[in-house]
C-alpha cells in the first residue's frame, strides 16, 4: 500500500463545492499518479470510480455506493464507512475501508486488494473473480456466493450460506460460520495455506491476527461441471 513513486503534490477536492463527476473526470484525465484528498463525501455515490492510474486517494468521511469501483492501479483509503458495492469489479490496486462496508463489497472484483477494518455485510465478495478481500470484522450472509477465483479472509464470523455455489476462490474464516452454502466445505489448512493467508494478512497490514487461527473453506466441486483431474487443461 505504499504511495506511488512519482507522486505529485496533493490535490484537495471538496465535494461540498465540487461534483463527483468533476472529481472523477480529473482522476481519469490525470494519467500521472496523483495524491488526492477528498473531503465532505457525505455519502455520495460513485466516488473515485474507474481510475486507471496509480493515484493515491484519501477520502475523509463516509461514502455511498460503488466507491472505487472498477479500480485499476490506484490506492484508495476511506476514513469512514462505505455503502453498497465498494471496489466492485476492481481490476487491481488497493482499497482500504477504515469503517464498515455495506453489501456486495468487492463484487465481481478481478484483482487487487480490498481491506475492510470494520464489518462487511451481506454478499461480501459475491462472484469474486480474482481479487483478495480481507475483512477485520465479520461478514453477512451469502458472502463469496459463486466466487470463482481469489480469496476472502474473514477475521471475525461469517453469516449464513458462506460460499454457496463456490468455484475456486479460497475462503479463510477465523471465527464461526453460521452455515455453509451449497457445495462449500471445510478443507484442511495445510502449510501452504497458512503461508498464503499470512501473506494476505501482511499485505492487509493486520499483524495482530495469527494465520494459524483460521479455518479454510472451499468448493466440494460437486455442483459445477469441473473435474479436478482435468485441472491442467483449464
Amino acid at each position, binding site marked *: 500500500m505504499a504511495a506511488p513513486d512519482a507522486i505529485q503534490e496533493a490535490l484537495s477536492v471538496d465535494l461540498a463545492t465540487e461534483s463527483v463527476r468533476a472529481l472523477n473526470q480529473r482522476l481519469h484525465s490525470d494519467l500521472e499518479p496523483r495524491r488526492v484528498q477528498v473531503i465532505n463525501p*457525505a*455519502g*455520495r*455515490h460513485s466516488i473515485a470510480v474507474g481510475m486507471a492510474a496509480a493515484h493515491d486517494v484519501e477520502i475523509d*468521511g*463516509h461514502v*455511498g*455506493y460503488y466507491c472505487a469501483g472498477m479500480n485499476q492501479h490506484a490506492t484508495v483509503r476511506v476514513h469512514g*464507512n462505505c*455503502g*453498497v*458495492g465498494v471496489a*466492485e469489479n476492481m481490476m487491481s490496486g488497493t482499497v482500504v475501508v477504515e*469503517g*464498515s462496508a*455495506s*453489501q*456486495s463489497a468487492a*463484487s465481481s472484483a478481478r484483482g487487487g486488494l480490498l481491506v475492510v477494518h470494520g464489518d462487511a*455485510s*451481506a*454478499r461480501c465478495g*459475491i*462472484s469474486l473473480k480474482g481479487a483478495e478481500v480481507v475483512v477485520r470484522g465479520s461478514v*453477512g*450472509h451469502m458472502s463469496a456466493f459463486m466466487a470463482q477465483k481469489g480469496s476472502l479472509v474473514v477475521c471475525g464470523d461469517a453469516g449464513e450460506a458462506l460460499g454457496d455455489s463456490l468455484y475456486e476462490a479460497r475462503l479463510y474464516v477465523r471465527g464461526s460460520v453460521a452455515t455453509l452454502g451449497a457445495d462449500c466445505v471445510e478443507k484442511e489448512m495445510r502449510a501452504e495455506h497458512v503461508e498464503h493467508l499470512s501473506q494476505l494478512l501482511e499485505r492487509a497490514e493486520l499483524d495482530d491476527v495469527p494465520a494459524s487461527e483460521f479455518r479454510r473453506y472451499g468448493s466440494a466441486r460437486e455442483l459445477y461441471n469441473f473435474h479436478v483431474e482435468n485441472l491442467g487443461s483449464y
Partner: protein
Amino acid sequence: MCGGQGGVYSGCMCGIAGLYIKSPAMEAQLGEHLSRMLEQLSFRGPDSAGVAFYRDPAPAGSCKISLCAADPAPDWAAIGDQLTNAFGGASPPRVRASHAMFVVEAEAERVQGWLSEHHPELRLMSAGSSIEIYKQAGPPVEFVRRFQIEQLDGSHALGHTRMATESRVTTEHSHPFSTGLDLCLVHNGSLSNHNRLRRNLRREGIHFQTDNDSEVAAGYLTWRLREGESLEQALEGCLDDLDGFYTFAVGTSDGFAVLRDPIACKPAVMAETDEWVAMASEYRAIAVLPGAEQAVAWEPEPGRVYSWGRAPVA
C-alpha cells in the same frame, strides 16, 4: 408495490427516512431536517412522497384526525362545525394543501365511524393522539414545498419517497400507510403474496383502500396488533408470513421500529448521536443532519427488529 428487483446491487427504488429527536431543543427543527432527508432520497422515489409526524398531542379524551380530499377542496370549516355538533367540540381545521387535521373531543374510533358514514368522499389519512400523515403524488421536493413540511415540529417523523413499479401513482397509493391509531408504515421493497394475504385479512375484517402491496403489510400489522400482539411480535410475524423483500419503518406514538427481510435486498442505514436517531435508505440522507460526521452509523442486520422510543416497543 414500491421498488423493483434489487438483485445483487440493491436497486435504487423508493426511499425511507426516519428521524427520532432525543434532545427537546431540536424538536422545533424536525420538519426542516426531515425535509432535507427527503430531498436526498428524492431520486430513489420521484413519483410521490409522504410523511408521518408525531407532534402536539391531543388532550386526554380528544383525538387527532388527518383527512385528505380530492380537488376541489371541500369546505373544511363546515366539516369542522359538523364535527363540533356531532361530538360537542372540535378544533378549527388546520389545512395543509389537500389535507386537513382536526382535534375532536371524542375517541378516534367514534370519529372514524362518523366520518365514513357522513363523509365517505374524504380519505382518512391517520387517527390517534399525536400522528399526522401527509402525502401526495408528484415530486418529493414539490410535496415538501406545498405542504410546508419544514415548518412542522415534533418528537419524531417518518418519510417516504416512492418509485412505483406495479400499482398506480396516486396519493392513495403513496406512503405512509396508517396501520391503526398512532401507527403507520413505510415500505421499500415488494411483496409477492399480497393478493392471498389481502383476501385472508379481509376475512378478518381489515379494510383496504387500494391494490397496493405495502398497504397489505400495513393491514397485516393492524390485524396482529388487534389480536393483542406487541409491535415487536407483529413485526416478527412478518418474517414468517410475508413473502418478498422489504425494509419497513413503523411509526408509533413513542418512536419508531425498523425491520429488514432476511434476504436484505433493500438497503438501510442507521445512525445515532446524543441528539437524534435516524434511519434512511442511504447514508447521504443522514449526512445532512447536524453532527452526522460524529454519529455512530451502522447497517441494521436482516431479520432483526430495531426500535427506539420513550417507552419500549414490546
